[in-house]
């Protein structure tokens, strides 16, 4: 929620007669008002005035942090590392002494205790004769948690808002043609989002190249995909873990759509950490793999065996989360793959239950979902770690 409170201040010394012609409109363009900030932050300030600007000063929590005399007004501020509310204030001064100001407040990271922590939300894909367009009712489902029947307390389909991370590999092996196909595919996914849905777009290689906050603003999300240049290696594990953690802070039907043209090479985290996180969380992972099946390889970081093990763990994380791997041979198939995932998410049944056998001991709970009738194929999260 934005807590921006723009001010148009006139100093006491201003004569009323001059006010009409000497107003200074100031706007803090970044950081974003509703996002937490830490460390070095570039504060960008937009100023409109009818006379020349002498300087722009930036204050953080009342303390002067720096000034700029030339547009574009950009002042680097050390915001510190504490998780706290911060008030940025930008003041522009004209040469005649007229001032204008804007105030922007950033929030700390909201770490909320989930009141419904024990509610397990399971998203179930059911297909019959290749079709997911079925009309099943709550009574058609039975949930077993470690073999114990559970009471379904929430049931729905295409009702919960979707919260997605589009985690897109733009490492150096991606050619221009492929990057364009990723852009189109991701855009198709974003275009299919409903107003209540939100997404975060993260372009990664061995580092984060671009990142948006979670937002429903499709234009802002899509603009992140423009003019992308590939660079660096591939660190799937690290950024998949980061995406799963980011989704922990959100609600709704949570999903990571990972696109990558190769396996992990440069991560510091083993895929076992991603698997652990996938088991402990509630987000699904879909992995669009360009280039077909995994092939054994060696690098400075891992030998053939270790890389194969990494792939197996990652594949397991995807499967156990209730998502799936979509192998594609050509970049041209990407739009279809993204659309396919979105359609599948829309057609999933959402079942919620409070496990009657929860102990919080971190042990694995196997989930079985049974659907009345013959011939249906059922896919869902395979289980969870009971934390």
């Amino acid at each position, binding site marked *: 929620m934005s807590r921006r409170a723009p001010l148009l201040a006139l100093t006491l010394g201003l004569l009323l007669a001059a006010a009409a012609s000497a107003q200074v409109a100031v706007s803090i363009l970044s*950081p974003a008002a509703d*996002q*937490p*900030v*830490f*460390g*070095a*932050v*570039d504060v960008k300030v937009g100023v409109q005035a009818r006379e020349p600007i002498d300087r722009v000063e930036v204050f953080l929590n009342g303390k002067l942090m720096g000034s700029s005399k030339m547009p574009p007004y950009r002042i680097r501020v050390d915001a510190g*590392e504490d*998780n706290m509310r911060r008030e940025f204030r930008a003041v522009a001064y004209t040469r005649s002494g007229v001032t204008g100001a804007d105030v922007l407040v950033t929030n700390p*990271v909201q*770490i909320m205790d989930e009141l419904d922590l024990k509610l397990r939300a399971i998203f179930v894909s059911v297909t019959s004769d290749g079709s997911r367009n079925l009309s099943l009712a709550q009574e058609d489902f039975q949930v077993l948690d470690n073999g114990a029947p559970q009471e379904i307390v929430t049931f729905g389909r295409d009702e919960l808002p979707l919260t997605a991370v589009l985690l897109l590999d733009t*490492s150096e*092996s991606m050619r221009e043609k492929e990057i364009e196909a990723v852009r189109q595919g991701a855009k198709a996914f974003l275009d299919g989002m409903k107003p209540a849905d939100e997404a975060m777009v993260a372009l990664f*290689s*061995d*580092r*984060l*190249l*671009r*990142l948006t*906050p979670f937002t429903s603003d499709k234009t802002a999300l899509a603009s992140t995909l423009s003019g992308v240049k590939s*660079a*660096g*290696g*591939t*660190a799937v594990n*690290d950024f998949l*873990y*980061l995406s799963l*953690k*980011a989704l*922990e*802070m959100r609600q709704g039907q949570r999903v990571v759509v990972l696109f990558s*043209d*190769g*396996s992990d*090479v*440069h*991560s*510091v*985290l*083993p895929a076992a*950490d991603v698997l*652990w*996180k996938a088991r*402990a969380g509630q987000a699904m992972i879909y992995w669009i793999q360009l*280039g077909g099946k995994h*092939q054994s*390889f*060696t*690098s*400075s*970081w891992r*030998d*053939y065996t270790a890389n194969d093990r990494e792939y197996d763990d990652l594949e397991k994380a995807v499967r156990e989360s209730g998502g799936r791997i979509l192998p594609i041979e050509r970049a041209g198939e990407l739009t279809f793959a993204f659309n396919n995932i979105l359609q599948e998410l829309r057609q999933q049944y959402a079942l919620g239950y409070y496990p009657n056998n929860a102990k919080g001991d971190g042990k694995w709970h196997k989930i079985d979902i049974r659907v009345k009738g013959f011939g249906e194929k059922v896919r869902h999260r395979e289980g969870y770690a009971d*934390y």
Partner: protein
Amino acid sequence: MPARTERYHLREPLTWLAAAVWLWAGQVAWAQTPGSSASAAENGSLGLKAGEDIPSERIQEIYRRILKDWSAGETERAPNELIELETSVVVEGDLGTRKTLLKAEQAVIHQVGAADLEVLVPIAVLHHEAYRRMLDRGARGQATAMSHTRSMARDLAILYREQSGSEGAALVSSRLLTSLGGLLLQSAQQLPAAEMFQQAVELDGRNVAALLGLATIYEKNAQVESAVKYLRRVLEADPENAEGRFRLAMNLKRQDQMAEARKLLDGLTASTDPSWVTPLAYQELARLASDQEKPDEAEKVLRQALERFPDDARLTIQLAAVLDRKGEGREATALIARILASPSSREASSARYLYNTVRPEAFAEARSFLAENSRSRLPVLAQALTSQADVAITEVGR
């Protein structure tokens, strides 16, 4: 996607044979040496067309002119002209055209080398520079010409060492081969790079860059024992080499020699003079602790690391994962939120990426050594080009 690599073992170098062939071929071609005449390369452009059938006499004439430019300090123009000449004469896939070029260039080198053997150094460096630029340009469809100019640089370096026999010549040749190996590695040609490094090490057993290059190729190809062998040689020559120590630790870890690996990593993190591998040493120490199910120790290591490298996104992610597993999810979440909010995590190449790629800095010393040695011999080359000494290289060696 990671580059596919193949398992292989290094072959015996064949270059010594090539050097012998050089001497013979040069003498034959020299008989066709023309007199000097005006060149078309007045303005830095030779005006040659790809695949043009240029007679040997003209090739020699142009090549001589290029050498003259090089000796006069035309460091931009001469390598570009050499590229133009070689890519014009050599038709891709037609080895006959390469042979024509080789003979013509040998003839000129034979003639100028007769005056003073030291001219081989700047000529070798000229070919090296041309090769570097061809790689930079990604010279598609010019593999044969590229291979030719690279072979010229290598063979001239070896010939110089063979003919001179001095320790100084061995150092120069070794550095040139090292630099060529680095360029090959940058273009993912591991086998020829390994051969270059091997030859460089044979010429100078304490050539750290070549030893490290060789060890890295073994490491990339999962030949851990060989990697360890060469990394130990790196540390014999340069005990404080941080990259060598880190790579040795990683390879020892692969061999389950955890105690020695840990000792090396501890030493790296204790150093007050951090290098690019220092954050990696912290990361791997923490991983060792995590693998041994000692999360408190992993956390301690990572917190120490973040005090030194507070903007390192990778260390932050790793600490978040350790805390998460310990059940301290709130702090883990706050750490991840910090990365998401921090643009600084999106800028630089990660050290983990650098570890698995070729850092041009690794060969900077070899290149500056070469440049210096080439520059000091340019007057000798200039003088040789103006003289018409009619003495074969083999006779100089007597």
